[in-house]
């Protein structure tokens, strides 16, 4: 285009009822850019707030943990999915967040170090401490790529596990562990049942609401990072770092930024998760946890926020699913001792493996890919393409 007008002044409004007619790029990259998305988002959020009234408390706890794990998965997806930096060290950042929160929010009169600080201090602090760790680790990613980076971050997990095990005054040590911080915000004690907004709610219902709001805040944050210039820079780095550098993206800055952001998400998720769980010990932050989070990202969908949530919900619910299946097949024993060919924990591990292999082969875009296919089927109606 040559000299087409448009002096800088009030732009007339685009015509009504034509969501595809974009008069500014801002509309194209809006958080919710179609009316259909707006409607379904509102419905989904309303439905999510209705969940606690239709499920039993033991299932609610599974959902609550799933919602919190989603935040961690979004964090991993930022660094691994969007920015393409494979990280096996996620468990370390989760642990760092969990212990920061436990120490800052822990009982000051207890056996272990605790400062009894309120939630609005320990939750952000957990994120910040993890993010600082991320900042320190980040520069390694500038030098290393792919498999090498994965191995280095793997090392981080072992380092972390060792430190957590040995710092007994902070973590309680192996086999003993310590309590997570108390969930208390605006005078509401989420770890006890009680009435909230005039509704008599159980502990699990209250925690579910807290986790839901927590997830909504961080999901929007994650989505905003992904759709902004930073997110686009991440994708450019992932697709070809040399090309990204050529178009003016500072690789060092963005790779470090990806690790820091990801770690922040991991830190706050770790803090919340173990606050809900209650007692936890250093062995929880081993390689298996990192792999679980990678599985969430892979099964949910790489480089998607909604996929991270789907994956996290699914993986957290997997033990429960394995148990339900075990009830159906007598060959799977429900206890660790005797009976059956395999026990339920072995079965769960096998299920993990099968799911990861299955998704990588048949549905590389994860649960999100399945959703996309369903959506496109209806979006294309009445055509197929």
């Amino acid at each position: 285009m040559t000299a087409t007008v448009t002096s800088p002044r009030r732009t007339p409004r685009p015509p009504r009822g034509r969501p595809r007619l974009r008069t500014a790029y801002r509309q194209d990259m809006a958080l919710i850019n179609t009316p259909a998305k707006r409607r379904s988002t509102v419905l989904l959020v309303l439905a999510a707030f209705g969940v606690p009234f239709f499920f039993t408390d033991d299932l609610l706890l599974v959902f609550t943990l799933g919602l919190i794990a989603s935040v961690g998965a979004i964090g991993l997806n930022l660094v691994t999915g969007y920015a393409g930096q494979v990280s096996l060290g996620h468990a370390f950042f989760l642990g760092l967040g969990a212990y920061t929160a436990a120490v800052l929010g822990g009982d000051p009169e207890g056996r272990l170090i605790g400062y009894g600080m309120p939630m609005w201090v320990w939750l952000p602090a957990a994120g910040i401490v993890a993010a600082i760790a991320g900042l320190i680790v980040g520069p390694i990613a500038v030098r290393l790529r792919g498999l090498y980076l994965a191995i280095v971050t793997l090392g981080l997990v072992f380092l972390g596990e060792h430190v957590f095990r040995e710092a007994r005054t902070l973590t309680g040590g192996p086999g003993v562990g310590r309590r997570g911080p108390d969930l208390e915000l605006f005078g509401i004690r989420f770890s006890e049942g009680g009435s909230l907004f005039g509704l008599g709610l159980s502990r699990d219902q209250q925690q579910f609401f807290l986790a839901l709001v927590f997830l909504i805040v961080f999901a929007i944050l994650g989505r905003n990072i992904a759709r902004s210039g930073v997110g686009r820079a991440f994708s450019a780095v992932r697709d070809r770092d040399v090309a990204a550098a050529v178009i003016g993206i500072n690789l060092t800055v963005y790779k470090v930024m990806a690790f820091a952001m990801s770690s922040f998400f991991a830190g706050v998720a770790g803090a919340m998760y173990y606050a809900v769980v209650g007692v936890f010990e250093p062995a929880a932050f081993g390689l298996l946890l990192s792999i679980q989070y990678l599985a969430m990202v892979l099964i949910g969908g790489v480089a998607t926020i909604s996929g991270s949530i789907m994956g996290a919900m699914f993986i957290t619910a997997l033990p429960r699913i394995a148990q339900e299946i075990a009830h159906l097949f007598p060959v799977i024993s429900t206890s660790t001792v005797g009976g059956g060919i395999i026990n339920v924990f072995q079965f769960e591990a096998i299920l993990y493996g099968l799911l990861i292999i299955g998704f990588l082969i048949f549905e590389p875009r994860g649960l999100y890919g399945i959703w996309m296919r369903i959506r496109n089927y209806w979006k294309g109606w009445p055509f197929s393409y």
Partner: protein
Amino acid sequence: MNERQENATARTTLPLRIRERARTSPSTVAMREKNLGIWDQITWEDYWEQATLVGHGLLSLGVEPGDRVGVHSENRCEWLFSDIGITAVRAVTVGLYPTNPAAEVLHVLRDSGTSVLIAEDQEQLDKALEIIDELPELRHLVYIEPRGIAGRYTDPRLLSWTELLERGAEHRDAHPGAVDARAEQAQDDDIATLVYTSGTTGPPKGAMLTIANIEFVIETLAQHGAFVDPPANDKDLIVSYLPLCHVAERVFTTWFNAAVGTQVNFAESIETVQVALREVQPTIVFGVPRIWEKIAAGVHIRMSGASRLKKLNFGLWMKVSQWIGRRLVENDGNHTLATRLAYAAGWVFLYRPLRERLGLGKARYAASGAAPIAPEVLEFFMGIGVPMHEVYGMTENSAIATANRAGRIKVGTVGEPQESAEVRLDPETGEILTRHAGTFAGYWNNPEATARTITEDGWLRTGDVGEWVDGTHLKITDRIKDIIITAGGKNISPSEIENSLKSSPYIKEAIVIGDRRKYLTALIGIELDTVGDWAQRRKLAFTTYRDLSQKPEVIELVQEVVEATNTKFASVETIKRFRLMPKELDHEQGELTATQKIKRPAITRQFAEEIADMYDEEVRA
């Protein structure tokens, strides 16, 4: 038109209308143009500003009233800025088809004596530069897109669009109000534009349309609501995609816009019109039959690749829609309770999403004109709920003759005469004659042709043969020159048979032959997209168009279409033999006009062998 000239002073013109809009609603959107994925909005204020600058620029180049200024561009906002700027300084706009080859550009520029040419880009500019030595009157060439030109072309006559506007701004500083003054002096019989007819038989002729002609069209169409009910207004959206040098698109784009403020939308390029339609969802859509046929055929191709459930859904609701379409046709386009209920059900499952996908979701008025269309195509669109109307008009009567009105539609006819138009048939030949204030002022530099076309008492000979249906609706039989008289002395209208053939998605072109022959034959051109798709699904390998059209399976496929068509006509009107044309017809090679109309003489010459073959065999047998 003479009786209308007396009240010349009370008249307004297109530039004055736009100036008025720029004054009363400066920040309302006049047009949009899609650039780099975003629809840039251009307000009335911007529109008038740009047009004035063009006007001043032309004044600085020494353009005098009555001078011809050419515009050779795809549809874009600069086309409108130029058109209005040119008219404002009382010069004459000469539109050229972007597809015109250099030879035709030469003809038009030389015939019109164009002194300034506004060319879109390097491609169009090169056409003019190739022949510039034969055009002594062409003094200046303005190019809109500088890519490939700036810094490489050194011709002193060249001027970029920005330079033109800069000159305009300087001229305005030196002579403020010069364009306004010139625009206000406009007379009713000023020639506003030369519209070159497509010329199926000879070289294109420049039809002179005056300011009075344009004002008549605006009064008839836009203000009295002869086309649309309620009348078109500033809430209506239009996608401008047909060539603006054709009178029909000029009516729908420039004149509607100036008259009632409809918002014009320009796609990024001609290839992205489908996407643009979907984004804009225009309320008023004008198309030529070829466009409607292609959309309908496109739906069928895409459906053939759809999943089973979708096919089933489509099949079911298309059956219903055919029934609705037929009922509507029987009922002059009015719904009955039964069709309304059927439509409501189908709306949920097929019609709404289908129309939305085609960009016709919000269409409240769709029209087909400029060439005859097969009733099947009209029924298809009416069936899925697009209010489709066939209209009739031509350059020489400023596109005003007859139109089907909402609720009084007769498919197969071109509708009833417009309110302010007189239409009658020549009692001897059956030729359609029209008379109204929109009748053109004559052909440029061609008094003989003018005399042949306009009778002494002001009737325009359209060159079309027609008949009345039920005394109210006009049905066009054919072009008077194209009527076939067989050796048996029977008069046959080829276009009816051709359109019936073309309503098949597999057939793009059909030319019926049989003048002074024993029986009818046809040259048929297949539609590469659909037949290619069909062949692929049958695992039929092919390389080129020529290869595909020679496959026995394809010939068989076309045979079926021909046979199906034959059952609809009397036995003298059936196609006995046909040949497939081994190439796609092309404007560049002189087989089609710029508006994709067939030049019969050229075709019969080019395919003389095939034609002889179709008759010779019979002789031998």
